[in-house]
């Protein structure tokens, strides 16, 4: 799970507003995808068909979210998600990154920002 939904699932202390779509890297059979889509639809959500094309830093950690018999789900770590947003869709996520900086961003976030050349000054 990536994007805004990942931050929501991780319960980060940030102000979040999410749309109906779920960004995710999917490595699954067609039947699993269809079942996921059905479950999402029950909750008024849709699977973003372009989820696999979302850019995430190589250093992203994926923490276990669900462990089933046949299916495992992971959620991308918040620092990596925020770096992805700050680098690729700065305008749309300006308030989110500003709030994270205001609340005291982690050292890891600053390291990732330096490494991926994210201009953090644009958010302040």
């Amino acid at each position: 799970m990536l994007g805004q939904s990942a931050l929501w699932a991780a319960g980060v202390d940030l102000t979040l507003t999410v749309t109906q779509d779920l960004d995710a890297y999917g490595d699954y059979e067609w039947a699993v995808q269809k079942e996921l889509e059905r479950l999402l639809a029950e909750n008024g959500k849709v699977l973003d068909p372009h989820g696999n094309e979302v850019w995430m830093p190589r250093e992203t950690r994926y923490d276990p979210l669900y462990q089933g018999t046949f299916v495992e789900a992971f959620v991308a770590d918040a620092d990596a998600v925020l770096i992805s947003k700050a680098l690729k869709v700065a305008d749309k996520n300006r308030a989110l990154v500003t709030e994270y900086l205001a609340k005291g961003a982690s050292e890891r976030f600053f390291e990732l920002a330096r490494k991926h050349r994210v201009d953090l000054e644009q958010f302040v």
Partner: protein
Amino acid sequence: MTLTQSDLQTRARKRHRALLRKRRDPRFQSVMGRFVEDGLLETNIEGIVPRRKPVPLDDALWAGTVEPRIMELLPAVLVKKPRLLRLPKELPEDVAEVMHAIRHGKPAPSFRGVPPEQYLPWVTQVGRKGRSPSVLKSFRFRHDDVLRLARLRQNLPARSDTDVIRMALELLEASTAKRAPIDPG
């Protein structure tokens, strides 16, 4: 980067406080409440109360400058769920333009800073799911094609020839499309 981490935090706190003031504005609260009520958005912003009453378009356009996801949804809402909004007698020119483009399948313009590739996908998600305004297109088929279409309509879970063509197009795109990487939402 020339600012230290501490400087960044100090400046960010100031900007964040300004943003909090905007989020407390009754216009923002009512628009967000309307979109939440309809399941278009979910938020953990404090004080947002779901509401059924339509919100003025002007308020929605302003709230969209505070929360970009509102602006991203607005073109679809205008066409598919206009009852969420209270529309003025005369629509702003860019609003009328984007609605016309969506309804008639014309090249869509950017809408208040939101490029069409970001707002168009919502046209099929808002309101009746999977539906976008249809556009009349005519093609000349050979007799063989017409027979093939009829056979496919019988063999597929398709309600019409258009359904068959739509399925074929989706299949063709899925098997051949090479998309450029996109930005996360």
